[in-house]
């Protein structure tokens, strides 16, 4: 057996859109040998086979995350610029959730 075969399976991040859901939400991670395997595992572990759900799996190594240390320059500049969001409009009740 080659050394490659003895290595641990890579980590995958799982995103699921539920039947009524509008977008995929990150719901966890798992180890799998390849993407097809990761999909099957995600179906067993995270969806319990509800019909109509959509699953995305992404190798964890392919995700670039923002650094907690970058918070000041990344996010703080937005906090005093309220005009970037339409927060001064009143949304009528019949519009519902936006």
């Amino acid at each position, binding site marked *: *057996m*080659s050394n490659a*075969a003895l290595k641990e*399976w890579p980590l995958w991040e799982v995103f699921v859109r539920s039947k009524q859901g509008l977008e995929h939400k990150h719901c966890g991670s*798992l*180890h*799998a*040998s390849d993407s*097809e*395997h990761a999909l*099957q*595992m995600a*179906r*067993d*572990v995270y969806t319990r*086979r509800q019909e109509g759900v959509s699953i995305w799996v992404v190798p964890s190594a392919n995700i670039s995350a923002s650094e907690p240390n970058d918070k000041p320059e990344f996010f703080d500049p937005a906090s005093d610029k309220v005009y970037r969001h339409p927060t001064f409009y009143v949304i009528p009740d019949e519009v519902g959730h936006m």
Partner: protein
Amino acid sequence: MNAPIDYLLHLADNALILGQRNAEWCGHGPILEEDIALSNNSLDLVGQARMLYQHAAELQGGGATEDTLAYFRDVPDFKNYTLCELPHMPLMSATAQGDRDFAMTMARNFLYSSLMVLVWDQLQNSKDAQLAAIAAKSLKEVRYHLRHSRDWLVRLGDGTDESHAKVQAAVDQLLPYTQEFWANSPHEAAALANGTGIDMAALQNDWNQIVNEALQEATLQRPADGGFVPTGKQGIHSEHLGFVLAEMQSLARAHPQATW
């Protein structure tokens, strides 16, 4: 129109015994995610068995329940395919507790689910409405079982030299047991005659195609069929089923009046 009780029991026993075998993997899977998949597989099969036993118990009457059918019948009463009761380790003596061989389990699940996708598909048209409904539900589950086990057959066959050798050994060991699928038993003949069952022999070509394509993709050789035709579905079993039942039924038999 109702299916013959023995025919329902045959379908139920297949699912229960294979479900029991898959459950033996709980906590022993090669990796956590696969452990969950095997338990899932087992739960699907036990669920199918329960629906079929409930239907059979209702037809049988006389106080029969799904539990009496599962826990208070003996080896000759069980009508599962011999394939379903074999241990996970090929070429072991009856009492030896061999390690679980994942290749053996996957090859067995593959051979069985390749058949059941065809069987449940056809049984959706059964004149027994209850059986047709059970078939529709089971078909969805068994399609997933086939996908899962077929993927592993290919992964192992087209994997390392060692995994290839193990899954080839499993296929060599198990494939001869599938000959039982095509031999008609009295209860299958009765079910076919009253429109509640199906003609098993007519499925053989489709099954061969599923199996041969998968074996080819997995770079595995199909062994010769051999002359032995098992008789599990007629109640004449291998030496292994007694041990499965002894373990599965022990609590119910020790406390026959208990409710749980």
